[in-house]
């Protein structure tokens, strides 16, 4: 790959990480079972798996929101103990603050990190313009469509210049057309920025389209069933991808795993 990358990507190393939750009845529920995963700096990794297999749990641990029951997570070699200043998170719901304008929503992490706001306002406008929201900075979130709101949420993560971008089914609640556009936007952004991305989804096609590597997880307790490298040159085009042989082969492999595990009915 000959892509020029700014050195902002963070490397992630997950060693033997398990997570058990305590249920209401006081029993242990094993959500993740000894996960080992290494993500190189600047790599785009997508995780697919059935609902309830522990994808969000894995992401929450990387975001420093919950602790692993056992095992270690290292970011650029340093063990993770809480939210990492270089990580940005995008959730399935946009979680925009309805009492703030679009611009003030984008600037929220800057405010929280107590950086000088004045220096970032122009950058925020620039990010908004890149996702087609030029001129929307003074609008309130309630004036935007679902797709626009999620774009704002992505800008809010990007303004932190995250070396590690964590995305938990960010396009799961969007209609097909909006989703397609945002997938393309995300690819463009990532090609320009070159950060490390962990992208969680249950869409097999969007995982393969976006990622350098697709990780397939088994039903609970979550384990890694397959670690599949996707060698399709970039920029990839959504319209052409469904005719690409490498894409189709990868999709078939993922489906086979799901069928073997009973996640997808074989027909």
């Amino acid at each position, binding site marked *: 790959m000959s892509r020029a990358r700014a050195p902002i990507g963070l490397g992630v190393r997950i060693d033997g990480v398990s997570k058990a939750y305590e249920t209401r009845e006081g029993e242990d529920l094993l959500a993740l079972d000894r996960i080992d995963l290494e993500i190189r700096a600047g790599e785009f990794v997508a995780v697919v798996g059935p609902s309830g297999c522990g994808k969000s749990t894995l992401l929450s641990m990387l975001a420093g929101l919950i602790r692993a029951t056992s095992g270690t997570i290292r970011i650029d070699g340093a063990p993770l103990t809480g939210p990492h200043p270089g990580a940005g998170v995008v*959730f399935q719901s946009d979680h925009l603050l309805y009492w703030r304008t679009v611009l003030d929503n984008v600037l929220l992490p800057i405010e929280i990190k107590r950086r000088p706001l004045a220096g970032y306002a122009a950058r925020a406008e620039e990010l908004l313009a890149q996702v087609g929201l030029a001129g929307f900075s003074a609008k309130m979130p*309630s004036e935007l469509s679902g797709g626009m709101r999620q774009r704002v949420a992505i800008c809010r993560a990007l303004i932190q210049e995250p070396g590690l971008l*964590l995305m938990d089914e960010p396009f799961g609640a969007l209609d097909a057309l909006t989703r397609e556009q945002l997938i393309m936007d995300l690819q463009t952004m990532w090609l320009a920025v070159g950060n490390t991305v962990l992208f969680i989804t249950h869409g097999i096609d969007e995982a393969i389209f976006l990622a350098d590597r697709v990780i397939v997880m088994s039903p609970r307790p979550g384990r890694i069933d397959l670690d599949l490298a996707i060698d399709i040159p970039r920029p990839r085009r959504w319209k052409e991808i469904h005719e690409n042989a490498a894409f189709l082969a990868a999709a078939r492999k993922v489906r086979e795993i799901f069928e073997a595990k009973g996640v997808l009915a074989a027909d």
Partner: protein
Amino acid sequence: MPKRRSFAQRALEPLAAPGLALLVLCAWQVAVPFFGLSEFVLPTPWQIAGRMVSDFPLLLSNGYVTLFEVLAGFACAIAGGVPTALAIFYSRPFERAVYPLLIALQTVPKIVLAPLLVLYMGYGWAPKIFLAFLIAYFPIVISTVVGLQTLEPGMVNLVRSMGASEAQTFWKIRLPAALPSIFGGFKVAIALAVIGAVIGEYVAAERGLGYLQLQANAKFDTTLNFASVVMVSLIGVLLYSAVMFFERRLVYRREAAH
């Protein structure tokens, strides 16, 4: 098919409520002589208005007293209620110990304490302010607790992932999300505080609008009694509008833009 409203309809609509009020007042004005009622049984609106002008200094000086009691009681209720709600929200043991009691106490009609308060606190300001406080306190506590709980856990995770401290979480998201509910509580509380102060005056007082009403009753001065009622109502409306004024400045409602 959307209904088109004519120009006349649109022009008249804002006048509907004042128009109806005026109509009722006119009916009252006409009905009193029609049924041959004396002023002492039921004064006409015109007589009440006249009395409000002629006895304005009296009404105003007693109005100030009541207004002060209400404001002091309401201020104490905010000063006590909001911290109580914060303690309930942030401290599990405090919540377990206090919240069920507060909810149980809310159902007790605080008004019945008025004679006891006079017994313990005398005839001065204290029992009126305390009653206004007591009656306004509960809705403020409960609406503030409910407001603090409205935030979705996902929002908290979002700001925590940005490295927010507990204090930042409170000021940046939890408090703003709670404000609509808190102000809802304030609006209920201010109306109740007026009731508390006036009831306090009914039980034992030497000044205030409630006291003025009792004096008017003793002298069979029904017109002055009505004038006092109008005055109390004006205080209620004034204070409620003041709370709404601050609400408009401070609170952005989710629904507002729709």
